[in-house]
């Protein structure tokens, strides 16, 4: 760890403001998917940098964009001082020797119609590595190194288990002696007992060949085990970055906290202070305008007049807003409109019922109650947009209006959250309340 601080001055990979959108070129397209939306970080030489996040958060796209397997829309990726995004075809091909990728799915990442030997050899052939004889020796050596037998050269991937296939994938990635390897969920498709072996192998190889890893994973325990530093991603944004242990011990960002608390610990006595998030992440086509996490955040900044509300009460309000958001969306599809005109509108719970279910249990301050009632009236009149806007006017805060900046919260640890601003309570303080 101490070494690493020295090396920080000499980063191998520098990603700055990287944006990758896709789906915008479709004919009847509409909004593009903002898979990676302005991500910046650095990876030091010899370090293992982890990216964690739930599925659909854009972590794989990020890895692929760095290797230029996906065309980034803006931003820069610097590798050892060269700007990758401006490389020409030839330079790019030459550069590819430096960086490789290990894939998640060991069955689909290697071509099953080729023998293991040919699979591992192909990168060597493409880059005209040495003489054919040397290549064969190199392949045998690699197979041996990743824990396979040289006689596996003539076998087909079919004859191997998932763990062994992943070893083949690793051997192929190592073939050209790269400096940098993107590990895209390298163990998530494997059984626990096999996982451990692959992780050990990766660690050994890192020591031996002085490799730099970018590890993409959703399994936080894996990340904690092998990463030096971690970035937590949500909806295309990097929510928090920091040294692994520090981040795991004292997460600053609300999302990181929720994510960490959601991991089931293999220990029946493990703490019960779990934060369960409501709902699911919004579509990356239409991310929330403010903080991307604002629709689910349990730490959301409230207006002063609402600070006195209990968590349950606040949740009811949030849920009410969710319901309205959904209903508004529902009305906009043409087929639905046709249906509505034909009198075949799907039966929905009358808004009064929704209101009574959500707000009956406790007494709210008058102003809140009033807004809710007003909204309900608007909904009955069919003014969904007005209703949503009214709620927004009443309850939304900076979390929903502005993108949070990155705040340095500790040494080497940065987090994107409005609560780090001095005028608000820090997330951890808020929780302890």
């Amino acid at each position: 760890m101490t070494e690493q601080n020295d090396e920080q001055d000499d980063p191998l990979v520098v990603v700055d403001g990287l944006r990758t959108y896709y789906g915008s070129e479709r004919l009847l397209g509409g909004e593009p998917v903002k898979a990676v939306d302005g991500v910046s970080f650095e990876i030091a030489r010899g370090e293992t940098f982890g990216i964690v996040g739930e599925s659909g958060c854009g972590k794989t796209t990020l890895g692929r964009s760095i290797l230029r397997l996906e065309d980034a829309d803006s931003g820069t990726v610097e590798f050892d001082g060269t700007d990758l995004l401006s490389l020409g075809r030839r330079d790019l091909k030459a550069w590819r020797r430096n960086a490789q990728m290990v894939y998640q799915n060991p069955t689909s990442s290697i071509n099953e119609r080729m023998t293991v030997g040919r699979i591992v050899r192909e990168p060597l052939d493409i880059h005209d590595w040495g003489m054919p004889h040397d290549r064969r020796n190199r392949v045998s050596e690699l197979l041996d190194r990743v824990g396979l037998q040289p006689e596996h050269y003539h076998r087909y991937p079919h004859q191997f288990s998932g763990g062994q296939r992943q070893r083949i994938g690793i051997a192929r990635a190592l073939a050209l002696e790269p400096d940098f390897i993107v590990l895209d969920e390298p163990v998530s498709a494997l059984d626990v007992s096999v996982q451990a072996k692959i992780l050990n192998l990766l660690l050994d190889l890192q020591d031996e060949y002085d490799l730099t890893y970018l590890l993409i994973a959703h399994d936080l325990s894996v990340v904690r085990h092998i990463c030096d530093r971690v970035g937590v991603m949500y909806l295309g944004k990097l929510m928090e970055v920091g040294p692994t242990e520090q981040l795991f011990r004292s997460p600053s960002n609300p999302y990181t906290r929720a994510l960490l608390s959601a991991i089931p610990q293999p220990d029946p006595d493990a703490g019960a202070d779990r934060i369960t998030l409501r709902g699911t992440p919004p579509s990356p086509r239409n991310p929330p305008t403010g903080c991307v996490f604002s629709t689910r955040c349990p730490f959301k900044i409230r207006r002063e007049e609402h600070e006195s509300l209990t968590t349950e009460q606040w949740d009811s309000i949030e849920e009410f807003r969710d319901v309205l958001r959904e209903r508004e969306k529902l009305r906009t599809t043409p087929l639905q409109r046709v249906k509505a005109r034909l009198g075949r509108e799907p039966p929905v719970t009358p808004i009064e019922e929704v209101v009574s279910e959500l707000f009956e249990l406790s007494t709210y301050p008058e102003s809140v109650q009033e807004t809710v009632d007003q909204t309900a009236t608007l909904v009955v009149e069919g003014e969904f947009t007005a209703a949503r806007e009214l709620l927004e006017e009443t309850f939304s805060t900076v979390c929903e209006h502005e993108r949070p900046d990155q705040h340095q919260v500790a040494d080497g640890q940065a987090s994107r959250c409005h609560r780090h601003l001095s005028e608000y309570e820090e997330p951890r303080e808020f929780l302890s309340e």
Partner: protein
Amino acid sequence: MTDESQAMSGVTDGPLLSVENLRTTFYTDQETIHAVDGVSFTVSPQQTLGVVGESGSGKSVTARSILGLVDDPGRVHPDSEIRYHDPAFVQTVARTYPDRVTWAGEKTARSASDAFVTIESGSGEGSSVTVERGSVNLVAAPDDVTRSLRGSEVAMVFQDAQTALNPVYTVGNQIKELLDIHQGLSGTEATEAAADLLESVGIPDPKRRLSEYPHQFSGGMQQRTVIALALACDPAVLLCDEPTTALDVTIQAQILELLERLQHERNLSILFITHDMGVIAQVADAVAVMYAGEVVEQASVDRLFDQPRHPYTQGLLQSIPGLASEGDRLPTIDGRVPTPNEPATYCRYAPRCPEAFEECKSTHPERVPVDSANEKSGWMRAHTAACLLYPEDESLEDRLQMHHNFGAPDESDAATTAREDD
């Protein structure tokens, strides 16, 4: 009847579902795979039994066998017993099949050889029998008994929620179908009940959701819907086959919380199958660890995680990243899970076991209490392991003898069936 099940019937609140020596075998052209090979466990009322194991250990097949959903070329061995103990259900079945009832304990068995209903205590007979305690053996029972059990008594939640829902019907339609079958509800009543169900599994704005199709739901909502489908049957036992594997951690947390709440609200017994030790630790009261078609260790969840005894369980727990020591290297288990394609006359874990010795290759370990102190405690609290190292306070010879004796009756059983088949 073995000692174990006698011990079990002594417990006042007996099991709700018990599986005894379950064998499910797949007969393909090339080989015979003993996917489930002599599995025994019990599910107690309102408790959660976790079944954990790597892929290919036979967890799913076990669940399928209980519901009679094993497809060709698989078959459940006729000597296996899957017993369901709910008195009301047993009574209904006993009344429908009065000539296939056995009274336990009575020496003069008034039972036919094909009896599948066992009554331990009750009164009356024939079609007016009342049952206080008893069980139905689902393996021997005719198909319509199994069918009447499905859903209304035991319902299942599958791993892949997306494909478990019929894509061409609305969610409401699918829930209402089950409400009609199991609770006789229809029309507006059913719609109300369906909306209530969706709400109880935490889907907001349920009325609107009823008229939507499964593909319009997110993964987490689909899994909630599958749970709602199971609940629509109003079952007593829920079989959950990896219900959270395909989900993200935050959604997984939601589902686990939901299951926990539902268990309390609806007094459910749950059989929870997963490969994730972390999940098991959160949800289960007792745990059975499966390896290559066999249960190798069973204990209460605290004991299992505190003092794992079987070398496999130990290895499994150690290899979890994050739980192990902070050192760089993770302890690992060598080799891979074998396909159980031959009868077990040896320990299937022996080739990978760091503690294996010569006898492991020739003696099949049976599930025994890990120490003699443990033997006396009740079934649910017992800690058993199928390993020649246990009971650990016996000498090696005694242990070998014990495992050998345990194994012997099975073999003779097999021999008799073979003869009968002739």
